[in-house]
């Protein structure tokens, strides 16, 4: 287990996020545990509604719904973030842990230039003057491969293309050299070529700064390109996790298999329709008893009526009763 050998940068244990509602407490994220090692790219995959965004917002301390209840432990460099006073949390946010959001258009304040917004973050965590912060913004935009950064810095978010906006967003997230970057579907809104450029940028960040990255996506193709390790989520739970090569070679959970089948082939004739997993994931309000994937699973049998724990198989962890029988139990 090389990735868990030394102290992880981030250790999440038994994280639960629930919402109070008329139908009682709905658990959207259910006893989630994972770690992120320094310099590692962890991909988090799962269909819509599986709790990926909630998990990342929980790490940032950004769940502000008054009906949300958060339990469990989130340790960053050994320090507990859950229950940390706001002032302390604020010093971590943006400086040590930064986040990129899916839609850079709505995630940037429309009335300020991108340079202003980057400088604002720089100044929140350093003693730089306005001019220095602005110079830093120009540098960052240049590093992100934006042409004419000295001009673009004075542009408003709506004046940029989607790809350029996402670069500005990434420049902002990286402005304080965070040790951990959480990217919540940063490429979903972009077309394929821009998507590839952004992925390269993320890899470059890891190479140049040694940052760890949690990369959230529902695109297995993206996972194949950049991840070191993969965590597959379904209905607020981890259903499988492990190093990317192992997981891609020998997926253990039927859900992972389904996701992998949905990657379009790189070469050769494209199939007319990609096979998709039939059905839709359950909402937190109507999760079945037992294995949450049960109703959609082709291999369902009696023992699925009990929610399976995570079984160890080689370097993978799989939450499926097929594993102990099928593999090296």
């Amino acid at each position, binding site marked *: 287990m090389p990735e868990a050998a030394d102290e992880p940068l981030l250790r999440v244990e038994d994280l639960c996020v629930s919402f109070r509602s008329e139908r009682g407490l709905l658990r959207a994220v259910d006893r989630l545990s994972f770690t992120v090692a320094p310099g590692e790219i962890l991909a988090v995959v799962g269909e819509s509604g599986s709790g990926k965004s909630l998990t990342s917002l929980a790490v940032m301390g*950004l769940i502000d719904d008054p009906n949300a209840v958060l339990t469990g432990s989130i340790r960053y460099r050994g320090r507990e973030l859950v229950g940390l006073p706001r002032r302390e949390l604020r010093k971590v946010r943006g400086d040590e842990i930064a986040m990129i*959001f899916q839609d850079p258009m709505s995630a940037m304040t429309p009335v300020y230039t991108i340079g202003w917004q980057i400088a604002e973050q720089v100044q*929140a965590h350093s003693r730089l003057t306005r001019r220095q912060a602005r110079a830093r913004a120009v540098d960052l935009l240049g590093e992100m491969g934006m042409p004419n950064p000295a001009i673009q810095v004075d542009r*408003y978010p709506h004046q940029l293309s989607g790809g350029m906006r996402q670069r500005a967003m990434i420049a902002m997230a990286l402005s304080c050299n965070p040790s951990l970057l959480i990217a919540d579907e940063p490429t979903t809104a972009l077309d394929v070529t821009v998507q590839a450029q952004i992925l390269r940028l993320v890899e470059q960040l890891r190479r140049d700064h040694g940052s760890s990255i949690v990369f959230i996506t529902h695109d297995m193709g993206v996972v194949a390109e950049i991840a070191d390790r993969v965590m597959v989520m379904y209905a607020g739970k981890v259903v499988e996790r492990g190093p990317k090569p192992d997981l891609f070679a020998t997926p253990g959970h039927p859900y992972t298999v389904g996701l992998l089948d949905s990657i379009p082939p790189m070469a050769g004739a494209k199939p007319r329709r990609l096979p998709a997993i039939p059905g839709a994931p359950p909402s937190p309000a109507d999760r079945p008893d037992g294995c949450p994937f049960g109703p959609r699973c082709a291999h369902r049998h009696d023992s699925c009526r009990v929610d399976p724990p995570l079984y160890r198989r080689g370097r993978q962890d799989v939450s499926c009763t097929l594993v102990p029988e099928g593999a090296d139990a």
Partner: protein
Amino acid sequence: MLLRRLGEMVFVMAGISVLVFLIFFATPGADPAARIAGRNASPDVLAAVRHDFGFDQPLWVQYLLLMKRLFVTGDLTSFVNRGQKVIPSILQAVPVTLSLLIGAAVLWVAVSVAIGVTAALTRGTIVDRALMILGLVGVSMPVFWVGEVANLITQSRYHDSWFFSWVPALGYVPLTQDPVGWFKALVIPWVTLAILYIGLYGRVLRASLIEAYHEDFIRTARAKGLGEGRVLVRHALRTSLVTFVSLFGLDFGALVGGGTLLTEIVFGLQGVGFLTFNALQNLDLPVIMATVMYASFFVVASNAVVDLLYAALDPRVRLARA
């Protein structure tokens, strides 16, 4: 762009002047000569008055004459108080209206921002609910009623108590003559006029702040590690400003134009609203025409200013136009 706006303004004002003229002169039954001559005037007197004021000429001649004396020669006089020049009397009334309005505006902006922000930040709590009910009460209390009650309390009932003995008699005191007296005379009118707008603006600001807080960019601002104060002022409040400011511009324009009428009457302030009111009662067409022109000028002008402010506050609007 500026020229086009100016052209638009002239066009709108010309249209309004024709409309007002037709309403007061060409509607059947509205015989200004009869009003001016008095109730029991003989037909001879009536005919004389009619001739004197030019009512026996064709309508369009009357209209043009009126416009010429209003805008070109500037010597238009009142029909009722002969010799009272219309333009100087409006110029005299403007400082009164402005004094009333500016003080009230400062008050209502400051208080409604405080209320809107507090309510938005304490959303769902008792504080929020209490503030919103208070705002609703403010919106639904008629201005003249508030004014009358205030007068009753401060002018007669409790005037001799230590608490209200400072309140001067009704009426305006020019700022240049006696600043303290000006302030004392206007405090209660300011509050009276502001109450409605405090309620209105407080509610509007609360709603747009709550909307702003649901925006993704607020989450980004927090993710950047900014303090809550900065998130509020630089992000939530700043983006809510567009609605607030345009509302303010339009209301201010309408009030300068004579919308302060009720407050002026209740407190005996001889402002533009007061003037308009008297003119309407006497069907004093030259004064009506002049005040309506003055009012429509401010309404149209404030519309233009709001448009400019809109562009200044929101780069998306500004750049779309350029």
